[in-house]
């Protein structure tokens, strides 16, 4: 018979971060200590590429401001102002894909970049201008010809492969589970046809809310494709804390949002636990979880405030032990117009356009 007066259970040996009260309620520091411990060293020399949903743009901007080695795989023309570069979507992500809201869309881009699959011939034409269904807002005025659209997309596909070849860390922000797909061929659109450009047809386009298993499978495919390009690449996933603008799931948008984010968060967490080359950074928790009481959202309870972005990125850089903030940016194209905090005005978000349709909806 064991007789021992001292506590004897696994919790005794847990660090402070494992306990709610000292870590959350009574925390002594401005930030949450040990919130995230990177699996691998990441420093300012690490070649980093970014892609994903609107929130991902905050990450790329923060990396640039901080002087990290963010890869700009499609540098805009010399002499273009920062305002024009943004208008033409240069320097937003590491390649000019526009926002990539879903894993399925990322997988699609990689299949095209690796020439494992060919992009479909679908192009949207309106008023003599041509729009890329997979990058509908990439050019402010559309393309002047079909050939120009294809040449531009090919440039991006080339940039994807070239960029990832030299990337050591690929940061991808998971945005949505909801997508729209082509009925006949199954390819994925970044947004519903007819919202930006193009014409919606229920005959041609179908709503798809990707399931846990489907997304997990696609993410594993993505990992495989990335490794095909670059064996040494590592992936850091994060989930966007930005709620859905609108849902086509027939559910309440709050329910749909939590469903999407939960699925994405669960997949990211599970794969991060299983793989040595994949990690998860808790952007979502830092903004959307209840200890922070929504204080990092604007009044619309959707847009992350500048302070919220700073809050997230401060945890990121703290975890990297990046405490010497001396910016030495030599490439003028990487210098934002102001080296200050990132504002929502800087973020390009196609999903925001869906809000324009809310007044047309049937009132319940």
């Amino acid at each position, binding site marked *: 018979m064991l007789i021992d007066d001292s506590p004897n259970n696994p919790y005794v040996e847990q660090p402070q971060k494992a306990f709610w009260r000292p870590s959350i309620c009574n925390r002594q520091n401005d930030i949450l200590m040990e919130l995230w411990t990177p699996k691998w060293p990441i420093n300012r020399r690490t070649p980093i590429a970014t892609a994903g949903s609107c929130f991902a743009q905050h990450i790329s901007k923060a990396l640039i401001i901080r002087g990290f080695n963010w890869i700009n795989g499609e540098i805009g023309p010399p002499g273009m102002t920062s305002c024009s570069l943004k208008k033409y979507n240069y320097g937003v992500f590491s390649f000019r894909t526009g926002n990539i809201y879903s894993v399925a869309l990322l997988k699609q881009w990689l299949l095209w970049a690796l020439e494992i699959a060919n992009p479909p011939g679908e192009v949207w034409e309106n008023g003599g201008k041509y729009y890329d269904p997979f990058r509908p807002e990439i050019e402010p005025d559309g393309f002047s010809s079909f050939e120009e659209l294809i040449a*531009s997309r090919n440039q991006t596909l080339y940039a994807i492969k070239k960029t990832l070849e030299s990337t050591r860390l690929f940061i991808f922000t998971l945005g949505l589970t909801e997508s729209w797909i082509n009925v006949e061929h199954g390819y994925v659109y970044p947004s519903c046809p007819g919202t930006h450009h193009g014409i919606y047809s229920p005959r041609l386009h179908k709503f798809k809310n990707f399931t846990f298993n489907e997304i997990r499978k696609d993410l594993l495919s993505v990992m495989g494709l990335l490794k095909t390009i670059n064996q040494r690449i590592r992936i850091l996933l994060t989930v966007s804390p930005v709620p859905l603008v609108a849902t086509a799931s027939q559910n309440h948008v709050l329910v749909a949002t939590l469903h999407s984010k939960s699925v994405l968060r669960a997949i990211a967490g599970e794969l991060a636990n299983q793989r040595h080359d994949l990690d998860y950074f808790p952007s979502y928790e830092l903004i959307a979880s209840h200890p922070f009481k929504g204080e990092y959202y604007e009044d619309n309870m959707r847009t992350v405030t500048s302070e919220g972005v700073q809050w997230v990125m401060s945890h990121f850089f703290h975890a990297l032990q990046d405490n010497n903030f001396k910016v030495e940016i030599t490439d003028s194209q990487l210098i934002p117009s102001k080296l200050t905090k990132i504002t929502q005005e800087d973020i390009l978000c196609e999903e925001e356009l869906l809000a324009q349709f809310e007044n047309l909806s049937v009132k319940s």
Partner: protein
Amino acid sequence: MKGIILGDSHVGSLKAALNCYGTPAGFTAVQFYAAPSTSLGDLKIHHGKLVPENDRLANMLLYTSGGTREIVFDDADVIILHGLGLSISVLSRILERCTIALCGRNAKTYISLSCLKQAIADNLLNRISIKILSMVREVTNKPILLSQTPFPDESIRGANDKRWGFMENEDRSKLHDCFVRASSTMAANFDAIFVPQPHSTIVDGLYTAAYYSKGSEGIIVDKKHADSDFGHMNAHYGNLVLHDAVSMINDI
């Protein structure tokens, strides 16, 4: 109609045109203010006038105007800004790294025509023509014409000048179109009118016929350019520019 013409050394062709052909129909008088290269950049606004910030510029204005150091627009009917870096050479920097060729060129980054136009406009912001234009517009509401620097003489193709290599590697008609559109937009931003190079002087999409370059002279009287100067034009060219300017003024 009295015209005031501000410009760099390219004003020489306009001055030569007046000497050779006389004052063009529509003008009663033409007053020049010119200085080489970017020297007019040393002008500043002072009590509704443009005045030189240094003696060197003051002397050039005195010389080219025939006796005036300060630029006053009160009795002008139209102001023409000629040259001043509004040049197709702005494309050299852009096309060093980019291309509009649909099939790609030696790993250069493909950009759309719309993007090229925007890049041209942005690069032109750094040119002295825009600085002068904004200053002139600030002191007067009179009509302003923005006249471009001429395209290089077609003979430059045999000179192997790498600065103009981009003209052989891209679709020149598209480059021309983008340049004209960008310049027109820039001019319109200041409620001015862009005067493109006279169509009849252009060969092969983006070069000036050699005829218009022979015997070119600068703003210093009786000082002709060398035959190897492929940038400056002669009186025949200047005459066509002035006639186009008059047509545009009449259309206002």
